[in-house]
């Protein structure tokens, strides 16, 4: 501890506030550099604040959130000048916790604080109308002071936390988060909806920029997950309901029927030889087939088989004793529901690939030799249908020329397009181009790009080497249209924007570097756990810089591409961040919640029961009181403080602590 801190500690005395004494409000107007002071006159605002009732102190400072700024407030509290604090600055969603801590450290009850938002809601949105911004700042300060005068000291609510985490999604992000938490001693439920963990990374052949084999780094992790005794792996399962709140969630998980006894099945795979039904293999993106009884790929974890009942014709051959010796086939298998108690949730549901069919000018779906980047991965992959001998789909011949097109579906502001940059396509196309050149140095490989974004560690070097050592041709220009010639070659039209000339180019195969999209059902997941999505459809973090793995719902974290496009290193980093945030929360054993509850004035309550109906948490019941008869009673352990009860109370008998009717009326009343 520094000397200054020791000194402050010595000085600190507790300021006892009962709530009944005269409020002494301190108003602290923050310049926030030029963000506020550059638009409105802070001096005028201070002078105005001094005219408000019960304001004893009004001060300004460059940054009240900084150490020196905090000390100004603390000194006033300790000096007995103020017992209610109003900071006029940024959004309380940014710094309310900071300033509450200031009060706490100064010995004042932390709930005697109110923040006036004069940055996000004033100087930033009205920067071109400074007069209007100033009027709003004045009103927001006045409204905050009005509420501050009505503030009462409150005690925090402490609840215990279940040291268990539910992770939705078993890709590289979900697996890494699961392993970190499990290794830290927490119990983990890892729920994956397909029959295997591994996610999209399992489909990749090599990873940029190091060119290490994807399977070699992924499959050992998959095995680790399966073996870890703290991880309960629930594949072919989906979370169907989540109730409760931070520390005390309850999730219902649907275990879909495999129709193969997962204990008895020894993964021998004889059934596959006998199964008469052939269908497209999702794992190989339609480039290869599988049977109705299947594992998605040979290294799948778990390795037991599943019957795809949409495809199965129920011939029963696989169930024959001579086919399935362990007698694992069970056509009567039923869905199972599992209820689990958990303290935290990590959403790692990953991504879908942009479907380029709607971009008719690129011929995807019409011309066989137009493929997506993910299909190219399977074509290049040594575990893919072509066992690492890349060929084009129409005739399985080696393509001597390949063109890649970047930003397919990305940076696209038309309906159906994605406005964002997908962050991985420049590098994966470069990687695939290099892989192809390694096998066929004589081939002509073109990458049509708008901007090459090589921002990661080692990426620019990777790109440079692709051009210099591998001779990959980078052409700056977006392909405008393609057509097919009689030999199924693709004729490309584009502009070489650096030459400023149109070009026409014939290639054997055309790869669309499609971007990453939110899962098609991301909206359902968001509703399921009640978190928000950003305008791009990915799950929204609580703060883009400071809380990148938290969501706005306490106890729920996001990891990987579910939050936004990212490459493997970033996805893993975020997964580890989410795991450590979840661990930090669960490690304490209990958490402090805002003590904002409904509160019933029994003298007014007539026991109509309207609030009972409107409470989404079942926190209210009608009781018989000795003095007041039938009245509503609120269980603080269940109450979340939403106030739906109070909003509907016909006799104004229910109030919400923290947002009381009295406080809001004070805010409403015009006193200027």
């Amino acid at each position, binding site marked *: 501890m520094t000397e200054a801190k020791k000194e402050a500690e010595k000085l600190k005395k507790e300021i006892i506030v009962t709530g009944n004494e005269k409020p002494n409000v301190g108003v602290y107007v923050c310049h926030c550099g030029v963000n506020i002071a550059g638009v409105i006159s802070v001096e005028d605002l201070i002078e105005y604040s001094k005219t408000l009732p019960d304001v004893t102190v009004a001060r300004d400072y460059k940054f009240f959130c900084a150490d020196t700024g905090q000390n100004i407030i603390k000194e006033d509290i300790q000096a007995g000048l103020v017992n209610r604090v109003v900071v006029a600055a940024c959004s309380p969603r940014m710094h309310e916790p900071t300033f509450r801590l200031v009060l706490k450290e100064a010995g004042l009850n932390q709930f005697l604080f109110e923040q006036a938002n004069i940055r996000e809601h004033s100087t930033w949105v009205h920067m071109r109308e400074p007069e209007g911004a100033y009027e709003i700042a004045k009103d927001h300060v006045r409204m905050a002071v009005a509420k501050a005068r009505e503030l009462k000291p409150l005690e925090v609510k402490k609840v215990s936390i279940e040291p268990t985490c539910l992770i939705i999604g078993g890709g590289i992000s979900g697996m890494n988060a699961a392993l970190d938490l499990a290794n830290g001693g927490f119990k983990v439920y890892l729920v994956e909806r397909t029959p295997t963990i591994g996610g999209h990374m399992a489909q990749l052949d090599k990873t940029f920029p190091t060119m290490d084999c994807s399977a070699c780094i992924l499959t050992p992790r998959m095995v680790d997950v399966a073996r870890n005794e703290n991880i309960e792996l629930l594949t072919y399962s989906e979370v169907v309901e989540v109730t409760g709140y931070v520390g005390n969630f309850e999730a219902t998980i649907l275990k879909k029927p495999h129709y193969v006894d997962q204990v008895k099945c020894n993964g021998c795979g004889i059934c596959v030889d006998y199964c008469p039904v052939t269908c497209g293999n999702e794992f190989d993106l339609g480039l290869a087939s599988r049977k109705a009884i299947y594992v998605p790929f040979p290294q799948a974890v778990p390795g037991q088989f599943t019957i795809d009942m949409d495809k199965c014709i129920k011939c029963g051959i696989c169930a024959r004793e001579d086919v399935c010796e362990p007698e694992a086939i069970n056509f009567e298998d039923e869905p199972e529901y599992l209820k689990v108690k958990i303290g935290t949730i990590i959403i790692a549901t990953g991504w879908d690939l942009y479907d380029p069919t709607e971009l008719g000018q690129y011929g995807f779906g*019409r011309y066989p030799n137009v493929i997506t980047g993910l299909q190219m991965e399977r074509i290049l992959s040594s575990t893919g249908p072509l066992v690492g001998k890349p060929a084009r789909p129409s005739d399985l011949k080696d393509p001597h020329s390949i063109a890649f097109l970047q930003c397919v579906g990305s940076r696209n502001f038309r309906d159906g397009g994605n406005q964002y940059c997908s962050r991985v396509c420049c590098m994966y196309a470069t990687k695939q181009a290099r892989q192809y050149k390694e096998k066929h140095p004589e081939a002509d490989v073109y990458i049509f790009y708008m901007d090459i974004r090589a921002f990661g560690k080692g990426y620019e070097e990777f790109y440079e080497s692709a051009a210099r050592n591998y001779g990959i041709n980078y052409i700056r220009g977006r392909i405008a249209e393609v*057509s097919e010639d009689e030999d199924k070659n693709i004729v490309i039209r584009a502009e070489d924007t650096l030459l400023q000339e149109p070009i026409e180019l014939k290639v054997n195969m055309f790869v669309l570097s499609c971007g990453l999209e939110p899962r098609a059902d991301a909206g359902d997941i968001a509703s399921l756990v009640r978190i928000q999505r950003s305008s791009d459809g990915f799950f929204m973090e609580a703060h883009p810089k400071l809380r990148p793995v938290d969501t706005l719902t306490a106890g729920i974290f996001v990891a990987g591409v579910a939050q936004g496009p990212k490459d493997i290193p970033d996805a893993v980093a975020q997964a580890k961040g989410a795991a450590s945030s979840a661990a930090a929360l669960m490690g304490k054993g209990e958490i402090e919640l805002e003590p904002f509850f409904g509160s019933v004035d029994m003298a007014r309550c007539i026991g109509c029961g309207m609030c009972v109906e409107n409470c989404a948490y079942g926190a209210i019941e009608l009781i018989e009181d000795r003095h007041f008869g039938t009245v509503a009673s609120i269980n603080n352990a269940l109450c979340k403080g939403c106030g739906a009860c109070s909003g509907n109370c016909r006799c104004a008998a229910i109030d919400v602590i923290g947002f009381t009717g009295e406080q809001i009326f004070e805010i409403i009343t015009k006193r200027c």
Partner: protein
Amino acid sequence: MSEQYKWRYGFFLGCVAPNRYPMIEASIRAVFEHLGAELLELEGASCCPAPGVFRAFHIPSWLVIAARNITIAEELGVSPITGCNGCYGTLRDTWVELEHDKEMKKMVNEHLAKVGREYKGNMEPKHVVQALYLDMGIDYLRDHVKHTFSDLKVAVHYGCHIVKPSDKRPWGGEYENPTFLDEIVELTGAKSIDYKDKFMCCGAGGAVRTAVKEISADFSREKLTNIREAGADIIINCCPFCHLQLDLGQMEANGIYKDIIGEPFKVPVIYLTQLLGLSFGIDPNQLGLIKNHELAGVPPFISIDPFLNIVKEQLI
């Protein structure tokens, strides 16, 4: 509406069809009458005005004159209908733009008020093909087919403004690979063959033909090369200006680019309703397919006899 008609439209003629290719006008009138659709005359209608030319000079003038043309149909309480992609572009774009831009609509009506007109925007401008495909429907058309021409290989030319800009057109946003015209053509038993750059522009529009005729002819040269390579017997189109460019322009290209073209092109150019009318059993005379004049320097510049020879057998 008189009893015998199921549909009623205001026939917006434009310029090229009535004044240069009257066989197109004749065939549209004949086919619509046959299908039970009444075409009312839009008395005093002017040039649409052409979207590539007048719109390019002065957008407000273009809007005002176009709106005036639409008001003539509005007064009759019918949709203006046109067989020309250019007129369609002008009338429909005006209709959509004035729907979205209230300020502009006000401006247009201020000028129209001076001649005692008011533009309301309550009548949707339509294309002949739109009426056939969306109002009447493929099944209705199929019921009228009498003769089929299974030996006929057709290169369908859509033109541009019938499908684009797609956000102002009724085809559900499809512009890369529309099929409606092929579907109508194939009702006649003819085969719509695929050819390179099928949806490419004829080259006449956008004021290019007026500016540099040779460039328009070069568009047509490329288009016709692809059509010839694909082995098409005829070209079917749905726009008099494309029709002109592919017919007259074909002759021009044969002259200007004879070194590149080699053997001159001689692909007959037929307007959609001419083919459709034949299939419905309408007298070829009414469809403008039979020449009964001695005039020189008038279309068709490329003989349509090869076409008539192919369909002759089926017509008997």
